[in-house]
């Protein structure tokens, strides 16, 4: 019988925007909910985010994007993830994401998009659901 380890999540800030209050608040909220959280810090290239995700062996990757560059960043990231065979990592996006872009992001393989006014608890519930379902599928 395997010992159940806490869910591991990488919170990342791709691009040049330095406003990371939301990323930090969520990181703390997920930590308080019992998850292991790693935060990349600001100004990360997609490649370095992927390297961190692999090294830290995370279940979930959360991207915080406020600069309006979510589509191009996610296209690049999801493409590289499938090339690297990282499809089992649940990818979430939070930040200033217009509603009209949500479907496009989901088509790219983003599991969920959390727009402004999202509650910490809702994000925690979503992650727990998603990750435990995934374990059961295995």
């Amino acid at each position: 019988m395997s010992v159940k380890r806490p869910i591991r999540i990488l919170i990342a800030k791709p691009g040049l925007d330095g406003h990371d209050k939301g990323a930090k608040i969520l990181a703390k909220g997920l930590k308080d909910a019992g998850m292991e959280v790693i935060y990349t810090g600001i100004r990360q290239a997609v490649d370095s985010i992927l390297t961190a995700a692999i090294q830290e062996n995370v279940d979930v990757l959360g991207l915080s994007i406020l600069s309006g560059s979510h589509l191009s960043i996610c296209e690049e990231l999801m493409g590289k993830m499938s090339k690297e065979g990282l499809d089992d990592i649940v990818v979430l996006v939070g930040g200033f994401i217009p509603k009209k872009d949500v479907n496009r992001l989901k088509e790219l393989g983003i599991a969920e998009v959390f727009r402004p006014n999202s509650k910490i608890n809702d994000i925690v519930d979503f992650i727990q659901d998603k990750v435990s379902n995934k374990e059961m599928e295995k």
Partner: protein
Amino acid sequence: MSDELIDKTDKKRKETNGHSDLKETNTGVKVKLFYGPEDLSNLNYKAALNDPGQYPYTRGIYPTMYRERLWTMRQYTGFSTSENTNSRFKFLLEQGQTGLSLALDLPTQLGLDSDNPMAKNDIGKLGVAIDTLRDMEEIFDGIPLDKISASFTINATASIILSMYVVAAEKQGVPPAKLRGTIQNDIIKEYIARGTYIFPPEPSIRLIGDTIEFCIKHIPKFNSVSVSGTHICECGATPVQGVAYPFLTGIAYIREVLSRGYQIDDIAPLLSFHLIAGGVQFNFFQDIAKLRAARRLWARIMKEQFQSKSEKAMQLKFSTGGMGGGLTEQQPLNNIARIAFYALAAAMAGSQSMNLPCFDEAYAIPTDEAIRTSLRIQQIIAHEIGIPDVVDPLGGSYYVEHLTDFFEQEIKAEMERIDKLGGILKCVEDGAIQKQLAHQAYEIQKKFESKEMVKVGANRFQIDEEEKELEVFEVDPQTLIRQIGRLEQIKAERDNIKLKNALETLQNAAYAKKNLMPYIMEAVRSYATVGEIVGKLKEVYGEAKQASIL
């Protein structure tokens, strides 16, 4: 209530001097039910307040304040691409505006040229891309730089942007002494809150010292630093920290220039502050008292600690703004009321300049209507409701004077606490301040989600309404292509031997810790890119490490 009960309550209140009625406000300050003469029994009018325009300037830095001259009304007029910035500026000048505000894109703020792969998503977004002097020349082409005042939201690369502006003016035949304007040039809050830092703190502060020294000598009408407390408040700083940290920051810049042999009375008048009135932790009377306390404390620090003798050095000049953090996406018209209260607090606190957020700011790039409404709020306060008639109208209020004393002590105590921990630079370098602010921001979020903190329309008094569609900045692919093409062309045309020499001389000056401004200007004249200059300096200074915050 029966008479007996009233008597009893009254007696108890007298016995405890009101402390039986302590209530915690939305900002965590404990206040009594009411305040009276006993709360001001130690108040010495001349020492603590004095008339407006008199030390310690608690009641305002000028004797006549708004009767003679209203606060400067500034509203951020949105962003612009390089293509239309010049024509937009010319339009604004024709309309009678004399101050131009230039927003720069993130790559320019971070020293990345437009052909740098890291920059690709952010070129021409949030502002203009400036790679070389050519961009600056085109932005101000045909605009007489001796007739206008230009302000630049620029920090880590402020020395380079200022150099480009000075050289562009030189080419128009305008000497530096005639230039007016402001550069933000406040790096410490970038490490704490805004994120556009490049080099480690120590050389960054030396660069700020270089620009201040250059301004003292050559551009006396230029505000060389605007120390900001607003960004950190949006990131979780308390109202007390929102004054204490910019004060410590300003003092760090002052000490840097003092160490070069200048006098306090040469330096301090060049500093201005941007402080918050409004925001997530807005409390009407407390925000007013905090700003009055800030004025008194700064004057006392300048006089007592730095032996200043000049009035201009002791007078705290500040602009106020509440950024969008206290506004709601839900029922957005409610924000007009919030913004009006922020502005009223700022006016009653004697602010020199105001820029207000806009009612649609929580979900959109402000529309012209929203920008105009924020300007109208200022004009209503200025011209309709009698606020400018009397200076410091709340002076002498039992409550406000009590709060003013309270905030002065608290701000001072927070400054001392940080100094005991090794000073603001150390606390920023090891991440202690970032960690604390992240913790405070998280606590505020929890209070909001649990409804302990009330946000009308967002977590109480809600109605069913459609979620607003967010507007975000999108890059026009044409901007990108044009900017990169232009950069390639300049790189091909310029005298690359002259450029190489200028960059090497600059680097040697950086190793020798000389004032870099003349060297940066020489590199700029040779059409060095912002990225090339920053690159040479990175080899000398290294790059700032991000402090761990979790």
